[in-house]
């Protein structure tokens, strides 16, 4: 019996130490709890920075061809390939992967469709967490910091919705208000999980409200150009107003940015340095990856920089619409960004394995050949503001002001330029040609076609150097065609009972 007692106490002794409650408390080391994030503005800033990093990182939404999907930059490239001014000779990324051939928008399970949709919603949802939590009493930090974070979150959210509504809704038509056609679900708080499609009008109302709020918060201090300050909010407000054919506001906000003088146009010398550096004066908002954050293949520059050492760039140089190129005046610095007849002498390339093609581009360059295709992807440049201003003036019948606004840009690009005397449609055409040349590769052409209800025309008459087989010979799309409208991704329909098949786009 004594032995039994000894042993029983032994058992108890052995069991007892294991019973401590904290023994079963564990936590991850590569994650941070929600509650810890929103304890200070410093921590909350990490959410905003996380969004910016995400905007410049290859997608994880889909495993299909992820290196061709470097965050927002990949979307900007994709939608430029959906136009006629940026193209390549072979059916490969951005052409046969769903963008240039318009398969992605029309296929509800397409990887690129999923990627476009999810990228912007992920930005929106992370921004919503900041907006929901930053004013909680537990968050320590200066009020000015809270305002800044709030303003940036609002700007990010508006930016994301401004793309979503243009992809998944038909164009905003100022003449047909309210635009009751279906847009996208408006997810505005972290508690919003299942939302129906809001109308295009409602989405724009929200975008404008967010931007107006962000502008009112007037956040002007920022660590670097990755942060969306009040100038970015104003620029975006102008961009959105132009899309809404709200020319007075487009004029107002574009003018605000230009007059603010924070982001003067680049010099001619700077203009040909490769569009890869936040230090360039007219970069208003851009990614700023470090070498560690770089990605040789899955980055914006990995897809577009003429000297990025990737198979894609070696074999498939990006070309400009030769008709468009030929309209650039001879002394315009922008002419230097493309080469109609490239040779080893006039277009040196890192190795002999790079292909040369007529009208190939050198607009974008990597910072250093070999460093992982590094560059600071531009999300907004002040040149766009001049173009918005000119176009908005012209489209609202203020030709003289439009001529001046355009000349303010053109005179910097072409030191011999004279102010245009064109008026009416001719003036608008000249502004649009400048816009197409200036913003080539930065994600505008598809949106412009849609915004202005234009057809897509890649036939030989309009784009003599277009290679039809690169896009399965999809050379024309009539204005307003259903191809310009993205189908809501199937994964959204499957999990969202408030978007039945009947609410799918036609």
């Amino acid at each position, binding site marked *: 019996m004594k032995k039994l007692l000894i042993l029983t106490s032994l058992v108890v002794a052995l069991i007892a130490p294991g019973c401590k409650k904290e023994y079963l408390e564990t936590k991850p080391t590569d994650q941070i709890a929600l509650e810890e994030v929103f304890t200070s503005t410093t921590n909350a800033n990490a959410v905003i920075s996380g*969004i910016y*990093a995400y905007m410049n990182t290859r997608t994880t939404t889909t495993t299909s061809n992820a290196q061709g999907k470097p965050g927002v930059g990949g979307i900007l490239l994709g939608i430029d390939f959906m136009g006629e001014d940026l193209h390549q000779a072979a059916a490969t990324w951005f052409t046969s992967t769903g963008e240039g051939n318009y398969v992605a928008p029309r296929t509800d399970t397409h990887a690129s469709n999923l990627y476009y949709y999810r990228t912007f*919603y992920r930005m929106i*949802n992370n921004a919503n967490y900041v907006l929901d939590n930053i004013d909680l009493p537990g968050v320590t930090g200066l009020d000015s910091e809270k305002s800044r974070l709030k303003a940036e979150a609002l700007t990010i959210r508006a930016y994301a919705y401004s793309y979503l509504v243009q992809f998944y809704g038909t164009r905003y038509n100022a003449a047909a208000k309210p635009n009751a056609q279906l847009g996208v679900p408006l997810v505005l708080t972290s508690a919003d999980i299942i939302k129906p499609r809001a109308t295009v009008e409602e989405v724009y109302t929200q975008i404008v409200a967010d931007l107006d709020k962000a502008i009112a918060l007037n956040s002007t201090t920022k660590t670097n150009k990755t942060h969306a300050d009040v100038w970015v909010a104003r620029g975006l407000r102008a961009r959105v107003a132009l899309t809404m054919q709200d020319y007075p506001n487009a004029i107002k906000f574009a003018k605000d940015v230009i007059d603010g003088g924070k982001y003067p146009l680049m010099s001619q010398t700077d203009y040909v340095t490769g569009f890869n550096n936040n230090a360039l004066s007219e970069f208003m908002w851009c990614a700023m990856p470090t070498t560690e954050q770089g990605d040789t293949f899955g980055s914006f520059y990995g897809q577009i920089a003429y000297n990025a050492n*990737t198979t894609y760039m070696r074999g498939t140089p990006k070309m400009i619409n030769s008709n468009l190129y030929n309209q650039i005046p001879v002394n315009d610095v922008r002419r230097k960004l493309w080469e109609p007849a490239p040779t080893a002498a006039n277009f040196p390339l890192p190795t002999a*394995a790079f292909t040369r093609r007529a009208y190939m581009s050198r607009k974008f360059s990597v910072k250093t050949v070999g460093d992982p295709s590094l560059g600071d992807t531009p999300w907004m440049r002040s040149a766009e503001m001049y173009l918005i201003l000119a176009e908005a003036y012209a489209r609202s019948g203020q030709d003289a002001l439009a001529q001046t606004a355009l000349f303010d840009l053109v005179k910097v690009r072409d030191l011999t330029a004279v102010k245009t005397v064109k008026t009416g449609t001719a003036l608008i055409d000249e502004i649009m040609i400048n816009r197409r040349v200036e913003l080539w590769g930065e994600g505008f052409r598809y949106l412009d076609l849609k915004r202005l209800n234009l057809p897509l025309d890649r036939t030989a008459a309009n784009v003599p150097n277009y290679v039809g087989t690169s896009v399965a010979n999809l050379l024309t799309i009539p204005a307003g065609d259903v191809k310009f409208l993205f189908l809501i991704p199937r994964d959204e329909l499957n999990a969202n009972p408030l978007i039945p098949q009947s609410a799918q786009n036609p």
Partner: protein
Amino acid sequence: MKKLLQSLFVLLFVAFNAMAQERTITGIVTSTEDNIPLPGVSVKAVGSQAVAITGGDGKYSLRISSSVTAIQFSYIGFSSKTVSITSSSILNVGLAPDSKSLADVVVVAYGTQKKESITGSVSSISAKDLEKRTVTNITASLQGSAPGISVLASNGQPGNSSGIRIRGFGSYSSSNNPLIVLDGAVYDGNIGDINQNDVESISVLKDASSSALYGSRGANGVIIVTTKRGKSAEPAINVNFSQGWSTRGIPEYERLDAAQYYPAVWQAIKNNLMFSASPVLSDAAAATKASADVFTNLVYNPFNVPGGQVVGTDGKLNPNASLLYDDFNWYAPLERTGKRTDANVSTAGKSDKTDYFVSLGYLKDSGFILKSDFERFNARVNVNTKLRSWLKTGLNLSGAMSDANTASDASTGNGSSFVNPFSFARGIGPIYPVHAFNAAGEPIANSLTGEQWYDYGIHPGAVNRPSGASPGRNVVYETMLNDNAYKRSQLSARSYIEVKFLKDFTFTPTISMDLRNNNVDQFQNPIVGDGAGSNGYKFQSNAVTKSYTFNQILSYNKTIGKHAISVLAGHENYYFKYRIFQADRTNMVARGNTEFANFVTSSSSYGREDNDRIESYLSKVSYSYDDKYFIDGSLRRDGSSRFSAEQRWGTFFSAGATWAIKKENFLKEVSWLDDLRLKVSYGQVGNNALLDGNGNNRYYGDRAFFDLGSNSNTEGGVLLASIATPNLTWEKQNTLNTGVSFAFFGRRLYGELEYYNKQVDDLIFSVPQPLSAAVTSVYRNIGAMYNRGVELQLGGDIIREQNFTWGLITNWSIFKNKITKLPAETPTIISGTKKREVGHGIYDYWLRQYAGVDPNDGAALYIPADGTLPANIRTVNGVQYVTNQSFAKFDYSGTAIPDLMGSFVNTFSYKNLSLSFMVNYQVGGKAYDSIYQGLMSTGSYGGALHQDILNSWTPANNTSNIPRADFGATANTNATSNRWLIDASYWSLRNVNLSYNLPKAWLNKIKVPSARVFATGENLYLHSKRKGLNPSESFDGLNSNVYPQSRNFSLGINLTL
């Protein structure tokens, strides 16, 4: 008459002998299977105290009194035999191995149990069964071993584990993998590190009453691996050596060759220009343009006619065209004859106080693809000693060092990567050579070395292949230059102290430890491929897994008359820690050195630690009466760190009973019935192995987290990764198991029939959230599901002659899986190709409904989704269809779960020769053949095409049931739909083993007690519905570019010295 006389004579003789006082009987005991002398056999005179043990040579000598009429011989692992004695003083006996005997002791949860007393469902595999298999990873040996165990066809990568499911699918978003227990404790090493030669037995616990003692981890069944220990007094040395060769075990899909390819692409370009281009061209214009475009898009022209003339406007290969070179088989330079060498030496022995088993093993298995191999050194020491009559202790220590080169395939996350040799070689068009040729068809040689360049896009004169043909890459060259290796070291220790006290009590504290160190080493060369852009890339990671299981078990065993009772109670503590560090660098300095120091730029680094802990209390009570009625029950309480404090404790239980009917008086006299028993059990076990979307364990599933590491410039950044689900808890599985086992006609026919119903409650679903939500999936305990099945194992000794036997064992399993509950707010869960809904199984396909081909333009037709706008409808012969797959209707389309699965094993033996073969099969179920879908796609120029493309729709072949090949319409013509489902029935000749025991007469001359030579074949043949398809590649019916399983052939010898 002669016989009668003989018997009479014997009887008289015995009677006469009985009068004598004492005598000595001597003899030799051998195994009937191989005639090897058996040392350590207990020899006992029936009805007296006289006992002897056979020596190392199998000889015994027993002194018995004259009243003794029979002697009993018994030996573990062999059927006991009682032999009547005659006048002769020499009695030689052969004992038969009794793997099927009910007297078998089976390893079960926290102990061993006589097979007859088991109330649940346990299958076991002995060392003898394992001997027939030459597998590098023991998981493959479970294939076909027993009903209810589904094992995937092994990946051909040497050393890879095969997926195992026991009795259907117990979970959706948590792990379905059975728990692996090694020598009494949960094993956290890699199962590939266990040396097959060290394994004494593998028990598979299939039902809740068997696995309830593993509580929160037992739901998916438990595989208990027990290693060998010393058994015989005579020290034995065992030497085992085998040499094998391997080749590809599954044929390639039937693909177009170079001459067929150009015209097929021409047709698909022409179709694009005529039907899906905008604007479209006329037939003639399209034909002319296609003849020009086919070359500009394929870029390469291996024919002796100009590119624009390879295919005429009639769509036929130019009759004058012939190949300039033939270097298009990318498999050829990648493949080799695999070699497998397996050498083992072990010694074992046992004295009355101590037993030991010591082994050393070496294995090198080089796969049939370059740079895929697995080399392992194993050592084990298992020593048990009785220090006092009441105190016993032991240590089982094993170590393994593995060194492997890994081929990239889907199982390593590289399904469609350029470095995946299988997707590359399979997917590249048949006109692209491995080596570089110029336009004239002459080899392009390296001017320095004189060797022909590989065609990799950067060599002199390089031309970029089109996007479907992996431009700028060369998997042969890259495989040679790159490294993808791992080094693993593994240490496992199991130690215990066993204290017996108060006669019937035993107290056993046990400590078990697994320590694993895993180094991954990857190098991407600076010349070609992923490392070229950054002048060489190096990645290295080091992961350490440490786990301890510490338990104290108190047990009580008592037999009073016909009553036997045993009670077990204990406490267990489990501690698991995983730590990883990884880094990569780019920009290589000097060629040939792939250490970090030889790289200039640090590119990234990462590290993390995970902890998992379980605290448990367990108990079990068993009672039996007269070996006729058995009942038992168990209870375990677990607390797991994987759930919130409110949800983490759970209680699991089981109860079971067995009735040995044959032992009842009313059946005693039925001579043709050897055994009949009924059993029933019920229990509840849990599953805490929550997984994330990538199949990795989720240790902190209940809380909201942001991922670290999304840094922007110098600012730290985080991204929302999960939202809080504090109510998350384990899945609970309630299993009813009933069975009947039987043996007839002197055990000529035997088997076991079982029925089970596994009901899973609180089933965890990763509920997909809208893409517009904060996170795209949330884990919730929302569902219920059952797996109900019937299993039959039926064996028979068809021929049982003295020199010739033929035994057949067949296994049959059927089961149904059905979801019985999903919440109102998410009544359906759709992900990938499957939809989950009440009344349907977890692997029910949910696909767009393909409806054939429009004879007018060859478009693929689909059934329209409800509510499709008229603008999207196309009416063909009065029936409404859609041609844009996005508007096609989804519907259920069968299941990936087969109707019937099974295996049969035939064993023939003739004298010293034995031949066995195993066939696995499955009937029914559907496979989604995505590889075939890919090969039927004309989505990008330069990709390989399946032979079936030749039969696709063309204006001339407008009755085809294959839609038109079209480079502009493949998103719709080849969309994911039920078109790609195919019957998943198959049969496979899994294993053949021929062995020969060398005759004693020869062996005696060289003083070798026994020797066996053998030849083994693995995966010799697979028959499936489509050439190239392996229906047993996955459980969910999908396939991918994996390393095909290998066909192996080995020769070996086993010596006992």
